[in-house]
């Protein structure tokens, strides 16, 4: 049994991502969408907190939201994988439930 967590808020103005990370269980996945994609920026003040909590949790980014914001590949944490809308659907199907951290 696993959960797909989605986060759509910037981690610099909202605690959703950090709270989400603290509530994940092994086997869960986090998908960053909309302003949530800033949570995967390398070298930011939240990057360490994100990486520390990814031991058994996979991190995904929605590609369209990354490109819209001008975030280049080399600025993204190596642990993060980018998916498109079809990959988003696959993630929803793979997990037992989806929890949105609004």
């Amino acid at each position: 049994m696993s959960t797909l967590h989605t986060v759509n808020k910037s981690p610099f103005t909202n605690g959703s991502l950090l709270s989400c990370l603290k509530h994940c269980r092994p086997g869960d996945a986090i998908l960053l969408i909309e302003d949530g994609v800033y949570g995967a920026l390398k070298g930011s003040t939240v990057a360490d907190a994100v990486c520390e909590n990814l031991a058994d949790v996979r991190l995904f980014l929605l590609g369209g939201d990354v490109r819209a914001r001008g975030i280049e590949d080399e600025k993204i944490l190596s642990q993060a994988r980018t998916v498109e809308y079809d990959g988003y659907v696959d993630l929803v199907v793979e997990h037992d439930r989806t929890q949105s951290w609004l």
Partner: protein
Amino acid sequence: MSEVKKFLYVNRKAPYGTIYALESLEVVLIGAAFDQDVSLAFLDDGVFQLTRNQNTETIGVKNFSPTFRALGDYDVTKLYVERESLAERGLSESDLQEITYEDEDDDWAEKPSIRIVSRAEMADIMADQDVVLSF
């Protein structure tokens, strides 16, 4: 002509996630018609508005980042960006698009509109204004 006032537009929100960033830019463009002394401040998540190579094709909303490059034609030539806000987000000046204006007092020489300032300098800039509009 009436007295010129100093207007500062404070941008603290990322683009696209909310409508604030686009609305701020719209207000700046409208306000530019009134011949005031206009400055823009970008701090906190507002610095994300100026990243280069934004491409909104997939998310189906207008990419308004090229519009910042038109501000010089409206005599909006002071875009202050806070260095600490960039660093906290893993960004530096090289991650921002280039925005220039032609200086009519210097034989139309092309000059950068973006000025990177410290948090302390940003506080001074804010304290120096007649009107501050926040987005």
